[in-house]
C-alpha cells in the first residue's frame, strides 16, 4: 500500500513541478511604501526613540501592475480565483528539495521547502510539496494537513485541485481512512 501511495504522489509531484515552471506570479497587489527617506535612518540602538523616523509619504511610484486579473473595486472586498505561482527563487528551492528527497533526506527537503514557503506562501504547489516530503518521512498527519492547505489555495485551477484531491486520497487511504479517501477521489474525479 505504501509503495503505491508514494509512487502516485511522486507522479503527481513531477507533473506539478513541471507545471510550476510555467505559471507566473499572480494575485495580491504589491504595494510599495514609496519614496525613500533622504537619509537612511540609523539602525536601532539601545537609546530608544531618538532615531530618525522613517517618513511615510504617499507612493511616488505607480502601483505594481495588478496582473491579468480584474483590479479590485476600491469599495468592495478583494478576492481571487487562484493562488500564486512559484517565482524562480522559490522554484529553485523546490528543485533543491526534490534532489534531497531523491537522496532520502526528507528533513533537508522540508527545510528547503519551508524557505520556499516563506517566499511563496500563497502557492498551492509549495504545500503539496511539503506534503510529499512528510509522506516520505512517514508523517502522514502533517502531510494530510499540508494537502488541505494547498487545496485551500488551488481555487479554480482544476489541475491543482485534481492533483490535491488525489494526493489527499492516497494519504487518507494510507492512514486507514477509506471513506475519506473515497470522498477525496470523488472530488478529484469531479474536477
Amino acid at each position, binding site marked *: 500500500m505504501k509503495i503505491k501511495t508514494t509512487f502516485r504522489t511522486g507522479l503527481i509531484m513531477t507533473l506539478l513541478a513541471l507545471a510550476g515552471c510555467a505559471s507566473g506570479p499572480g*494575485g*495580491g*497587489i*504589491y*504595494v*510599495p*511604501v*514609496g519614496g*525613500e527617506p533622504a537619509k*537612511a535612518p*540609523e*539602525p*536601532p*540602538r*539601545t*537609546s530608544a526613540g531618538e*532615531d530618525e*523616523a*522613517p517618513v*511615510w509619504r*504617499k*507612493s511616488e*511610484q505607480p*502601483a505594481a501592475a495588478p496582473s491579468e486579473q480584474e483590479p*479590485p473595486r*476600491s*469599495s*468592495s*472586498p*478583494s*478576492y*481571487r*480565483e*487562484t493562488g500564486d505561482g512559484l*517565482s*524562480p*527563487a522559490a522554484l*529553485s*528551492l523546490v528543485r533543491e528539495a526534490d534532489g534531497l528527497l531523491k537522496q532520502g533526506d526528507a528533513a*533537508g527537503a522540508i*527545510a*528547503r521547502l*519551508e*524557505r520556499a514557503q*516563506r*517566499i511563496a*506562501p500563497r502557492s498551492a504547489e509549495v*504545500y503539496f510539496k511539503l506534503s510529499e516530503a512528510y509522506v516520505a518521512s512517514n508523517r502522514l498527519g*502533517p502531510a494530510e*494537513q*499540508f494537502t*488541505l*492547505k494547498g*487545496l*485551500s489555495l*488551488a*481555487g*479554480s485551477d482544476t489541475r491543482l*485541485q485534481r492533483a490535491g484531491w488525489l494526493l489527499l486520497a492516497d494519504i487518507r487511504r494510507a492512514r486507514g481512512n477509506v471513506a475519506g479517501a473515497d470522498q477525496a477521489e470523488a*472530488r478529484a474525479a469531479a474536477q
Partner: protein
Amino acid sequence: MFRFCAIGLVLLAGWTVYLDAVVTSRFEGRRFEVPSRVYARPLELFEGASISAGALERELQLSGFHKGAGDKPGSYQRNGRRFVISTRGFSFPDGDEPARRISLTISADRVQSFSVIRGEAAPIIRLEPARIGGIYPAHKEDRVLVELSQVPALLPATLMAVEDRNFYDHFGIAPLSIGRAMLANIRAGRVVQGGSTLTQQLVKNLFLTRDQTLLRKGNEAIMSVLLELHYEKDDILETYLNEVYMGQAGTRSIHGFGLASQFYFGQSLGDLDLHQIALLVGMVKGASYYNPRRNRERATERRNLVISEMEQAGLIEPERAARARGLPLGVSERPSYSENRYPAYIDLVRRHLARDYKEEDLRSEGLRIFTTLDPAIQYAAEFAVTDTLPRLGGAKLAESLEATLVVTAKDSGEVLALVGGKDPRFAGFNRALDANRQIGSLVKPFIYLSALQRSERYTLMTPVLDKSFTLEFDDGRRWQPKNYDGEERGEVPLHKALSHSYNLPAVRVGLDIGVDVVSDTLTAFGVDTPISQYPSMLLGSVSMSPITVAQIYQGLATSGFNTPLRTIREVTDASGEALSRYSLEVEQVADPAAVHLVQYAMQETMQEGTGRSTYNILPRQLTLAGKTGTTDDGRDSWFAGFSGDLLAVAWVGRDDNGATALTGASGALPVWSRFMAQVPQHGFSPVVPDGVNYHWVNTERQALTDKYCDTARLLPFIAGSEPAQTVSCSGTLERRIRGWFEGLFQ
C-alpha cells in the same frame, strides 16, 4: 606542642585541599559558561524580494556590514538604488552559505537585477543573520560577558593603577599591602582598610560573604594563592572584569564591566570614553556608595580622583585628564539592562525555548538560536508605537497610556516583531505576553464564523435584529446589552452587523447558535485557557494577551488553518550541530468556505465599517481585513487585522486598567495603520475556496439581482445557500433593453 602543631598542619592541609576543590570547580564553572547566541532571521535576497533601500541598508548595518567599496567580505557599496554586497558566508543549520559578491537594485521596494558577480551562482542567497542578543542569566545576575582582548586597554590599566599596581607580579596576595592595612586597622581599632589584590577581590566576589572577619580573611588569602597557582594572570583578570559587583537593580545585581557599561551608559564597553571608564573603575570601591545616579557629586569626586591616578600612572596626558575632569558623568537617565535590543521578543524566545531546554544549558552551553525576528518589521513596529502613542487622546492621557504590537507572517505563523510597551528597550513587564485584557468586539468574527458554518441558517445576507432585549438569569439577575452608540437599527444584514460591529445582533446570533459553540470555535483557534460561558462573553468579556489574540486571528487570516506561532526556526550547539528544528505546522480548524465569508466582512470593516479611518493614511490598493475591539470606558483599545503578508495585533490601554476616551478605531487602529504604512507588502486577496460562489444580490430584498443595479452587492455564498429568487433593479425595463443592445453589437 609538636603534636599540637602537627595536628594543626594536617587540619590546615585538609582545609586547603577542600578550598582548592571549591576554587577550581567554581572558577571553571564561571569561566567556561558560554551564553547562547540569538540570531535574527537571515535576510533572503532574490529577484523580486520585498524590501526598501532604507531597510536593506539598515539590515546590512545590523549584520555588521561596513559601507565601502563592497569588495571585501562584510562590506557593501550603495549608489542610490544600486547595491553591491560582499557577503562573508555563514554556516546555517541546513547548510553552508558561501561568501559571494552580489549586485542588485531596489525599485518600487523590490529587489531587481539581482546577480551574483563573484562566487557560486544562485537565484537566491541568505545574508548572515544579525546577532540580536544572548541568553546569560545566572544566579539572578545578568551578564554581558567580555573578553580581555575586546576590552579597551585603558580599562585594565586603570583598574590596576587604582586597585592593584603589582597585579602581574604578586602571587595572589601582597603581604606588604596587607601589613599596611593591618597597621591602619589596629590604629583605628576596627577594619578601615582592605589592601586586597584584584585576585583577593575576585575570590571575595566569587566564593565568600561580605563579612570582614579574620577567618574570612584567612580563607580569602589561601584561596587567592590557590587561584594564582592554577590559572594565568589574564584569565584571572578577565574573570574579575566579568564578576566584579557594580550595582543593584531591584533584586538583580549588576556584575561585570560589560553589563555595568550598559546599565549606566547604555553603551557597549568598547565605545566608552576615558571619563566613563574612570567612573566605572572608581565604583569598584563601593558601587552603591558611589552610585552615579543617586550620589552624583560623590561619584564625580571619585571619578576625578581616578582620572588623576591615570594621569600619575602615565596612562593619559595631563591635558586629556584636565578635559576629562571637566566633563559631566555622562550617565544615561534610565538604566538599560543588557545589550538586548529587543527584550520583549527575546522574552518570548526564552519561553518557547523553556519547553525543550533547561535554563542552565541556555546560559552556559553556547547554543546558537535562530529566531524569526525580522529587524525591518521590528523597527517599523517600534516606530509605530513610539510615534503614535504620544498623540493619542491628549497629552495628559497619552502619558498614562501603554501599547503593544505583535506582528506575524500571515501564512507561516512566524513572529516577526513584538513590542511589549511604549519603551521598546524596557526589559520588564511584557504586556504582549502577560497583559490579559478583555478583548471586546475582537470576539465577534468568531461568533459569526460559528454561525456561518451553518450555511443552511446563516449567510452574509441574513437579516439579524439590531434591537435591545433583556436576558434574565435563573438567579434573578438581568443583563441588557447595548450598542456602542446607543442606537437601534431594526434589521441589518449579517455582513454589515459585523463590519460595523453592532453589539445587539452579535449577542442575538451568539445566543441563537449557543455560547458553547462560540467558545468551542475560540478553543479550536488556539485559546488555551478556560472561556467563560456567560453570555457577556459574546461582547468580549473574555480576557486574552495580545499574543493569544494574534494566535487566534492567524486562523481567520489563513482561511481556517491554525498555524502555531513560532519564534524559533532552529537551535544548534556551539559547533553548529542541529539540536532542534521547529517546523511549520498547519491544522485545519474551520471550514475554509465559512472563513472566506468572515474575511469578506472583515475587509468590509476596513472599507466602510469601524476600520475605515485606516485609509486616511494607507493607499486604497492595499486591501486589508481587520476588526476593532473596545471594552467599557475605553479601558482596552484593540485592533487585529491582516494584509496579504502580515498579521498585526495592536493594543492600547492603561496598566492600571483605568478608563480612556479611546475606542479600537481611535487608539489601536492608528498604531496598527502607522505600522502597516511603513512596510511594503501585498494586499489581502483571498483565494475563493472550493464551494464558494460570488453573486450579485439585493440584500434588502434577499434576492439575486443584476450587477448594474444601484442596490447590487457582490457577496460570497457557500454553494447551496444563495438566494433562490431574482429581482431586477426596481423592476424597470431599462436594463433589459440595454442588455438586448449589448447582445446585438457584440
